[in-house]
């Protein structure tokens, strides 16, 4: 039995976050295993971003319980295993995508067999590697941020609206990244408005209630 149900990567029981004593999102229960993608769905203001920021470790757990690999919710336990991509991309406008990636790799380390150049080609920024980020279009900036996902080692990806600002090819790119990540035994939580289709079956869904 235990082999069929390994310890989940992430478990939430009655999780909620309070702002000025008002719950931003209601009590939430979900389980995420490695090799799974969960779509976080909900209307504007239902707390999708707040949930991701909480899981990233920027916010404290308001009420309820979170477990990481069956153990407590502890910053050191998760160190280096989580990547967060928020609304703000975390890119320095005065530096090129390549320089931005080097800083990120300096902080997080990098995956075996990945280089900044190859990663930037993979996300479709060939020819723009050394252009300051401020000169790139919104979609290209997004791609520059997505390159971090390819380069940095992490198990859990927390992606806040990864499809925003992207063209059709970009959306396909995000889906490809997610599929490859899951196939390697990673997991991801993704917030989105639009419909998403994966080749690797139906993703899990987490409904948010405001």
């Amino acid at each position: 039995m235990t082999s069929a149900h390994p310890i989940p990567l992430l478990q939430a029981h009655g999780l909620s976050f309070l702002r000025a004593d008002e719950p931003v999102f209601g009590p939430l229960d979900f389980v995420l295993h490695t090799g799974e993608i969960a779509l976080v769905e909900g209307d504007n203001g239902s707390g999708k971003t707040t949930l991701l920021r909480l899981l990233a470790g920027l916010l404290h757990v308001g009420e309820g319980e979170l477990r990481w690999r069956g153990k407590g919710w502890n910053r050191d336990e998760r160190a280096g295993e989580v990547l967060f991509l928020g609304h703000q991309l975390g890119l320095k406008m005065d530096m090129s995508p390549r320089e931005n990636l080097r800083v990120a790799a300096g902080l997080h380390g990098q995956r075996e067999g990945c280089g900044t150049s190859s990663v930037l080609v993979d996300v479709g920024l060939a020819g723009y590697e050394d252009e300051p980020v401020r000169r790139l279009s919104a979609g290209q900036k997004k791609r520059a941020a997505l390159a971090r996902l390819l380069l940095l080692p992490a198990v859990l990806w927390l992606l806040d609206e990864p499809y925003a600002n992207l063209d059709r090819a970009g959306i396909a790119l995000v889906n490809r990244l997610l599929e490859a990540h899951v196939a390697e035994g990673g997991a991801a939580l993704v917030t989105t408005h639009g419909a998403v289709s994966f080749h690797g079956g139906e993703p899990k869904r987490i409904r948010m209630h405001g």
Partner: protein
Amino acid sequence: MNQASVSHACAAVLRRDLTLAWRRRGDIAMPVLYALIVATLFPFALGPEDALLQRIAGGVVLVTVLLAMLLALDAMFRSDIEDGSLEQLVLAPQPLALMLGMKILAHWLTTALPLIVIAPLLAGMLHLPMAVMGVLLLALLLATPMLSLLGAMLVALTAGTRRSGMLLALMLLPLCVPVVIFAAGAVAAAQQGLPWIAPIAWLGAALALALVLAPLACATALRIALDA
């Protein structure tokens, strides 16, 4: 999978901040210009009398440098907050206090160091005796890192607020009173031919303490300020 070593991470943060400062060289010049303007205004306000200017020169230079640093302090984390780099730094699997220490070091190198370089010029304009110049520079070398460290902690606290300029000054004043007293005290003592080593030693001791504690406090303050 290669975990990043702490030294690599430190180097990455330091190099990034210095690169960014270099690409916006104009911003580095601003506090220096400001200090020049303030120091120039004093003789106009007080009259060009040598003896008077000489007596107040040390204090004027110190306060001017402090105000110029305060001006630049507000920007220490602002762009990082706006573009989300600060979140990435907080979430990186590295000791946050150390990373912030690197940011503070970069900030000190880009704002305080140019001010220290022009301090002899400012002091010369106010006729500070050459013999005292060394003590003034020593006092500045010890006092400016203190201000950077204390200021960084307060800027981190206001990271979650909209307006912070005036508030920062209000919060920094009580913390920098002892720094100003000892730094100016050393210069005044040297000018009167008294031993000045005691206040310098106190400053050095305080700096050693702040070097250890302020980055830790800064990390705690930042986690509080981002947590909402």
